[in-house]
């Protein structure tokens, strides 16, 4: 599904990612762990199409060159990023935004757009699954949301858009254990044989609830070790400083 070969990314001629390689097959869950500043968010941003990086190498998503696709086209193809810091968008109603987003994607895929009633039914169902207070959906997008509400809102968007590749950038950071479980349930309910996940995290904790197939350790823009779930535990015990 996703093939990253020799990815190199610089900002202002500062090297952030270097010789980065990763392959994710349909249905797989990969975790990337790494200390602050190792390049995790940069990787997520590049996969989603954010501008401002000098990139080289190759990224194929379902055999298509990602660099040739605009940000929104990647979303249409099924790439979703749960932001580490979801943005506050004043004056934009959350529900209306969700509907606009879903219908933009459905339209691009040649599917029928949902009308207000169909959409509301879907959103109610998903919000309930995530124990997400519906009242929040009538507020302005992320404005005045607590940290946990913002993260849950990302997961709600993910479950409504039903992407093929979901990238979760430190979604677990700052969540209490109940919220963490809800997020994990959200991910697990989307786990199907065609849906893949890239779970970026600082801590091992989330991986107690979402069992990854592979764990990669990212240091200074490069994967220095890959393995199974046991690698996360090893990291947790040793700490990043003593790893290597």
């Amino acid at each position, binding site marked *: 599904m996703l093939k990253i070969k020799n990815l190199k990314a610089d900002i202002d001629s500062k090297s952030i990612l270097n010789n980065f390689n990763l392959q994710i097959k349909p249905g797989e869950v990969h975790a990337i762990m790494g200390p602050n500043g190792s390049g995790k968010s940069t990787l997520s941003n590049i996969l989603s199409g954010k501008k401002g990086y000098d990139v080289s190498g190759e990224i194929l998503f379902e055999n298509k060159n990602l660099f040739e696709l605009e940000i929104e086209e990647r979303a249409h193809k099924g790439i979703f990023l749960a932001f580490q810091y979801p943005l506050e968008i004043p004056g934009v109603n959350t529900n209306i*935004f969700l509907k606009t987003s879903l219908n933009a994607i459905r339209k691009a895929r040649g599917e029928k757009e949902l009308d207000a009633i169909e959409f509301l039914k879907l959103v109610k169902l998903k919000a309930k699954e995530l124990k997400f207070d519906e009242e929040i959906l009538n507020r302005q997008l992320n404005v005045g949301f607590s940290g946990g509400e913002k993260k849950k809102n990302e997961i709600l968007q993910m479950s409504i858009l039903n992407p093929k590749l979901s990238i979760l950038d430190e979604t677990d950071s700052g969540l209490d254990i109940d919220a963490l479980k809800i997020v994990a349930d959200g991910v697990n309910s989307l786990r199907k044989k065609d849906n893949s996940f890239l779970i970026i995290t600082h801590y091992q904790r989330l991986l107690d609830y979402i069992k990854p197939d592979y764990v990669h350790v990212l240091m200074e823009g490069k994967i220095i070790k890959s393995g199974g779930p046991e690698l996360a535990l090893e990291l947790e015990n040793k700490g990043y400083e003593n790893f290597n």
Partner: protein
Amino acid sequence: MEEQLKIDFEKLLENSNFSKKNVEIKRKNFNDFIEKGFPNRREENWKFSDLNQIISKNIKNLSFYHDLSKPNKIDQSIFIDSLEHNKLVFVNGRIEKIEFDYEEKNKIQILDDLVLEKPNNANNSLLFLNNAFVSKYFKLIVKKNYSLLKPLVIYNITNKDLVSKSVNLKVDILLEENSSLKLIELSNDKSTTNFININYNFDVQKNSILKNYKIDNNSNSNVKYCFNNINQDTNSVSEIFLLSSGSEFIKNEINCNLNGKYASAFVNGIFNLNETKHHEIKTNINHIVENTKSYQLIKGVLEDKSKAVYQGKIFVESKAQKTDGYQLSKAILLNDNTEFNAKPELEIYADDVKCSHGSASGSLNEDSIFYLMSRGLNYQEAKKLLINGFLLDVVEKITDTEIKNLIKNIINL
């Protein structure tokens, strides 16, 4: 231009039947205008918008006389059809329709045979010009204890018959005690390169409510000035909303005197500009007595080479204790060639007051765009969503739901 002014002024006097008294006043005002001329940037009030220059750049051979003897056809398609309303229709500066079908006839009075008064602002040459050249000067009186059942729309229409002319309109509105009026001003210009000079005087008496929505939305090459003087008595409310968007140049000036206790004034405005448009909102809110309140919120979205100016002044007299004055302006600059000038000014002589002001401008937040696009919206959609969101809170300040929806519709919000 002086030659032209003189010829046109004499032509006006010749072809109208003004009272002797008015002719005398007009001559005086005419001479005062000749002496001062159009304002330019050396005047503090005009330092961001040099009207003299703007007129000479945009209007070739400006003339001042327009024959108002023949009636004009009204293009009915311009009327707002989603809203039942009363009408005052001006076409090329000539009144063509006065219609108050929804109201009790004896509760509304319209006078047009008025003696001109000396402008109360001795520095404003455009008021001299207006007094000198205005043909019919109207006064609308809303009687004591009467609230108009439907809004009044003043249509100010110009058509292709008008080119490089100066049009002067003057309307006084008196809201007697305990009355209320919702007034929408809607301009529609199919004319080109004219100077349109409008003067409103509002007298809002005790316990009365004025809601005034000024909509300049259809694109045109005219240069406009609209001076609004508002006097407010005890416990009165004025709510002004400005949609400043369509004209090549427009300056809306609002001089509001809060003369009675518990009087409050709200000024909310949107600049939505593109191309080379240059718009200004200038306010003077004068807190004259204690316990008065003013609130101003102005937002702008500027594209291409457009320019917006907001000069907002809050003046607090020494006896105006417990004044509450608030002012905020924000602009999104979509292009490096746009310009937003905000000049907040507080002049406060009382000590127990609550006054604040703030201003900010910047480009669209690229991270927000990225966030929205990553959810499947294209750049244009993301931009529109952000801009609409930015403007929404100004429109939400409109307290009349029907008119709020009308304006949302007009700007596609």
